[in-house]
């Protein structure tokens, strides 16, 4: 330990009071002689960025990291964000601050404007890794907990020996539990890879890393060099076996979650079809195109928001859901009134007509929006992921699962408790009887088809978040949708729910074993066999209601 405790106490005090990271890192570094020693002055190092070579830039970053100069942090973070400019002729380097101010990187003085010849210093992945490691040790003392945790993570990954001193400094005055845990793990990683650390220290380090138990810990342990002492090597192997066992357990849970998530996508895609095909018996090949219409509605809504009210972007989906329902529903009613009502009871003609319709809709969208994919953004609350134990759950999948279940419940409630729902059930169960009770059957038909299409449109809003918004969007879901409805039992919404989740989970447990292509084939074969045994699916409607 070459740290002087006075300096540390001083440092700690400063974090709490001012939170000035930079000033602090200088104080700290000036307290540890020997580390800051390297060839060349600060100015020379900065000028290396103007050499336009990734290797030179990398040298510059490693030198700056240990220079202790307060400009090191702003320069390196500017480099990371593409805000560092260099001029080839004068070898001058400039930082463009977040507020647009231009600063001379060599001395921190403000300059009026960027010279004409200046252009951004380029990055590649190797340089990015060096930057992450450098920023990691520079931000270990950040006043912000999440920044400290992130810094500890990147030190854990890079496990550079030079990070040991700042780690110890950070650990001394860390009060947050999560940050302390991350810092301890990072310190263990550094010790483990430090050539002259004692065997006891290394064994302790392995215990700490084992407790972390995730894939990164495993990666770290399996990356250990071969020249470890036998005791350390044995401990590492034991730790790896234990982590692997733990991870295998979690991967089963993870697969189940993936299955649920795939199931929710299948449910969303199929639920509209469960109405048009399941309840009404119309073989609607244009169902996928209703999903596509919903997705394009989302695109139009987002475009409008982007150009007119950019601050409201996070609400775009909330606006798109009702709109997509109305647009797709209206198209559905129009299709029913103009084509399908003439074809009731003639399934083959319906199939052909709706298939033709799906081609027309696709080409129409291609003409209006072009053949290319359209960018539909994820609102911030749908991006990213969080961890539960050793499994990652992405927000977009989680929201889609919730959304699918909500749509399902609303639809179920509608059929059960509203007048329209009652009329729908009456008409589909016995059309003539319903008509003689005074129900306008053709109106109910149109509304039912509109409802099914509208729900497909709503599904399109959700699917636009995980899939391409292109004219072919619908095609990829039509087969899956029919599969779910037929498997679950035609005419039964619960069947659709159970069918979707069964297929989703079965698919995801097959995929790691058989691969994506074979997995899909296996599922199809299983469904064919199942249909042989139970032609009406999982939940068949019973009784006279079912007309042939």
């Amino acid at each position, binding site marked *: 330990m070459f740290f002087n405790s006075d300096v540390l106490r001083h440092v700690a005090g400063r974090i709490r009071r001012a939170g000035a990271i930079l000033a602090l890192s200088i104080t700290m570094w000036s307290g540890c002689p020997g580390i800051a020693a390297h060839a060349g002055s600060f100015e020379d190092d900065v000028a290396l960025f103007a050499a336009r070579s*990734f290797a030179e830039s990398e040298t510059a970053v490693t030198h700056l990291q240990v220079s202790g100069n307060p400009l090191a942090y702003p320069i390196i973070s500017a480099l990371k964000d593409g805000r560092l400019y260099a001029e080839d002729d004068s070898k001058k380097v400039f930082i463009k601050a977040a507020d647009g101010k231009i600063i001379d990187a060599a001395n921190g003085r403000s300059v009026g404007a960027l010279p004409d010849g200046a252009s951004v210093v380029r990055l590649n992945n190797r340089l990015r890794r060096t930057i992450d490691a450098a920023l990691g040790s520079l931000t270990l003392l950040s006043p912000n907990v999440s920044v400290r945790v992130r810094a500890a993570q990147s030190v854990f990954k890079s496990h550079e020996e030079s990070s040991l001193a700042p780690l110890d400094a950070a650990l001394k005055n860390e009060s947050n539990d999560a940050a302390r845990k991350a810092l301890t793990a990072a310190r263990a990683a550094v010790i483990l890879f430090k050539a002259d650390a004692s065997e006891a220290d290394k064994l302790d380090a392995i215990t700490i890393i084992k407790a972390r138990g995730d894939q990164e810990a495993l990666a770290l342990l399996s990356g250990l060099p071969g020249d470890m002492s036998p005791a350390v090597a044995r401990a590492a192997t034991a730790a790896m076996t234990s982590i692997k066992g733990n991870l295998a357990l979690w991967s089963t849970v993870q697969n189940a979650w993936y299955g649920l998530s795939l199931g929710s996508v299948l449910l969303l895609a199929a639920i509209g079809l469960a109405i048009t095909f399941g309840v009404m018996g119309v073989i609607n090949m244009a169902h996928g195109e209703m999903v596509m219409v919903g997705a394009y509605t989302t695109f139009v809504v987002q475009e409008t928001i982007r150009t007119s009210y950019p601050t409201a972007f996070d609400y775009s989906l909330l606006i798109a859901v009702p709109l997509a329902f109305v647009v797709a529903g209206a198209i559905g009613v129009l299709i029913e009134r*103009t*084509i399908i009502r003439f074809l009731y009871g003639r399934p083959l003609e319906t199939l052909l007509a709706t298939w033709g319709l799906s081609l027309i809709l696709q080409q129409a969208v291609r003409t209006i929006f072009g053949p290319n*994919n359209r*960018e539909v953004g994820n609102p911030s609350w749908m991006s990213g992921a969080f961890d539960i134990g050793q499994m990652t759950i992405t927000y977009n999948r989680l929201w889609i699962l919730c959304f699918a279940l909500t749509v399902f419940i609303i639809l179920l409630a509608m059929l059960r408790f509203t007048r329209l729902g009652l009329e729908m059930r009456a008409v589909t169960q016995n059309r003539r009887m319903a008509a003689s009770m005074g129900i306008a059957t053709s109106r109910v038909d149109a509304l039912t088809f509109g409802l099914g299409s509208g729900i497909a449109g709503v599904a399109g809003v959700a699917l636009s978040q995980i899939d391409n918004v*292109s004219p*072919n969007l619908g095609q*990829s879901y039509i087969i899956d949708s029919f599969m779910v409805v037929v498997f679950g039992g035609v005419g039964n919404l619960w069947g659709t729910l159970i069918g979707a989740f069964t297929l989703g989970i079965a698919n995801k447990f097959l995929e790691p074993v058989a691969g*994506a292509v074979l997995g899909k084939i296996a599922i199809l074969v299983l469904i064919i066999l199942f249909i042989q045994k139970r032609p009406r699916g999982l939940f068949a409607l019973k009784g006279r209601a079912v007309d042939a």
Partner: protein
Amino acid sequence: MTLSTKSLSSGLLSRRTWLAAVAGLCLGFSTFTPAHAADDTIKVGILHSLSGTMAISETTLKDVMLMLIDEQNKKGGVLGRKLEAVVVDPASNWPLFAEKARELITKDKVSVVFGCWTSVSRKSVLPVFKELNSILFYPVQYEGEESERNVFYTGAAPNQQAIPAVDYLMKEEKVKRWVLAGTDYVYPRTTNKILEAYLKSKGVSGDDIMINYTPFGHSDWQTIVSDIKKFGSAGKKTAVVSTINGDANVPFYKELGNQGIKATDIPVVAFSVGEEELAGIDTKPLVGHLAAWNYFESIKTPANLAFIKEWHAFTNNPKRTTNDPMEAHYIGFNMWVKAVEKAKSFDPDKVIEALPGIKQANLTGGISEMLPNHHITKPVFIGEIQGDGQFNIVSPDDPTKAKLVPGDAWSDYLEGSKDLEADWVTLKCGNYNKVTKKCGGQAS
């Protein structure tokens, strides 16, 4: 939404509604054959899908061909005769490609055809071009293992894209463990076979290679991405070599971003992702992932800047991106014009003979040459995805001075194909076996 109701009304008008289905079919597969023009024009066939799955990629190529032809006509045409484009739509339907190719050659009497994207479509038109003795320019990077007398390959062979990309990862990123992920069809399967053989020849053990195939349009990448994550946690630097094609790329990259796999941890190098494909996604989470191509829109040469300007003016859209296959058509078209001028004839036999040896400046500062094996020399660039959907060239250091690599029809790393050689000038053979000294030594 107005147009969709308009197209619906076509169904409305027909008295018998089942006609709507037929109308739909016709509309879906409609072709665009312009009215016959004066006889002294020379017809150029354009065989790219304008509807169906591949429309996303191929429509742009039709547009760029129209632009090139238009431009050539402004310069006075070829041999004093104006060019006329004949555009047909094979609708992403492989057998229809053959039918449309036959129609172009026999009915429209085109002198040359520019077209196809997928390898399946190329394989489907091959017999037609052989039988009717016409010329096809194929502009897309492909798996190699082919050289035909009637076809000129202006896209990259595996040694002009896949192998240099792997070399870059080995050298610059020190990658030791490889995931070869692809869509399940002929191009990824053959490319991965070549790459696997190449990696093994470089001393990578079989345990450090993971091969994974997915169906076309695969959208649920959760399992595969988490498998890649798992594979990457073995303590060795890992990279993904992606031959994933078309639409499936967008959800793949989205899942990578969501599961937090950054390019600094596990870089993905893609062979089928260009500016056009990135136009559909938010690229911020993807910064640092790589692509290997022979052209990037971001390379600043005077020729490229002029080309981009012209493209924006022609399409009347300043946001339209340019990409690698477009440049291939640019090179191919100009080579054809030069060959016709050299042969002083549009006769296919004479043009085929004149083509090898023709040199044409490409858009990135080099001079590409048509080789006797009907492939061309091309520079190889590795680009990193940037936040704005463009690529930042990381290799070579100065993209305008890149070394040109000659396209190799038969891979040197595959058993059976390494003895083969294609040479249409001296050997007059597309698959000459150097060991048995016989033409037709087809192996794989």
